[in-house]
């Protein structure tokens, strides 16, 4: 006897234990009155049992299990080694924010106290080297040597200014 054509899916789902309670109730009722569907359901259960038996899965051997674990740990270690140490350190949970805060604090401290030391006005004089000092001494000597000429030049300038004033009057 053939199963009802509209019950094929129900039979499959029932064999897999996938009917919801309402469908199950309906199926159980139908099963008692329909020998075709009942036979098909039972045949399917037998076939699924036979299929399951036909490919038994061997237990994973102890050697195989420890080999898998060892290889996984080894590969993970290698993988971790590829990342740079500072990334590893920084990216650990709870480290990024304190690290950034510390860096900001150091920058602010340096900015506050270091600016005075770096850009104070005395700094250039203090840092004059021997070459610059020699140059200044040479320039002074030249002025002393030409002092007479400079005085004459000054007198001439005064004369010129007196003449200019007279002309303007």
């Amino acid at each position: 006897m053939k199963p009802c054509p509209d019950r094929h899916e129900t039979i499959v789902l029932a064999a897999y234990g996938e009917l919801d309670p309402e469908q199950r109730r309906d199926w159980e009722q139908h099963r008692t009155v329909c020998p075709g569907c009942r036979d098909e359901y039972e045949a399917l259960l037998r076939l699924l049992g036979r299929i399951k038996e036909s490919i038994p899965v061997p237990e994973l051997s102890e050697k195989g299990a420890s080999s898998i674990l060892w290889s996984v740990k080894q590969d993970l270690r290698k993988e971790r080694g590829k990342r740079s140490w500072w990334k590893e350190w920084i990216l650990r949970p709870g480290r990024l924010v304190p690290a950034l805060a510390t860096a900001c604090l150091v920058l602010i401290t340096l900015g506050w106290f270091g600016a005075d030391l770096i850009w104070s006005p005395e700094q250039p004089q203090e840092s004059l080297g021997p070459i610059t000092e020699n140059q200044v001494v040479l320039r002074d000597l030249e002025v002393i040597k030409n002092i007479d000429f400079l005085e004459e030049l000054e007198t001439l300038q005064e004369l010129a200014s007196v003449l200019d004033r007279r002309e303007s009057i």
Partner: protein
Amino acid sequence: MNPQSGQPINPENEQSLSPLKDVDLVDRARSQDQWAVEELVHRYQQKAYAIAYHFTDGNVQDAEDFTQEAFLRAFQNLEHFRGDSSFYTWFYRIVVNVCLDGRRRNTRRHKIFLPWQSPSADKGLPPEERPDPEAHEQSLKAISEKELSKEIRNSIKSLPEKQRVAFQLKAFHGMSIHEIARVMNTAEGTVKSHLFRATQVLREKFKDWEEG
């Protein structure tokens, strides 16, 4: 859901040695806790190996390699596990994907290095396990138990990939349709449809055996 017991298949419930839940172990493994990594491997390696064993048609070495690759891929991507689904469905999805990738890789390699071999469903089997064409012709009523097992393996192997995945996860690993949908990243209705078609094909093929 296990059809026999009606219980969901979850190694966390079945074979857990540690009182810690998967979520806690995953959190610990994320911060490189070696003990948590070991515990997760212990908890899921047998199940992952069983799935891989079925997907590799009983090749023990490939099954071990795929299991190892799946664990490695999972631990490398732990930061992408958001906890929307349970860890084991997320991990089994990785196992299935690794197995399917591995199978495709092997098929490609086979085509490149052994192009003269005709593509048949039996190419991975040793000669003694390949079905005898004459035996295939005769009625399934008459075949022996060993031959029937062989016939069943070949029939499952010849199913389209998605139907095969859905069928294997259901029939061999007792996953619920909801779990299979999570693993295959598809709708439950689609899984039902794959499962139904696969079951119909097998039922049709082994009708003679049943009637005998």
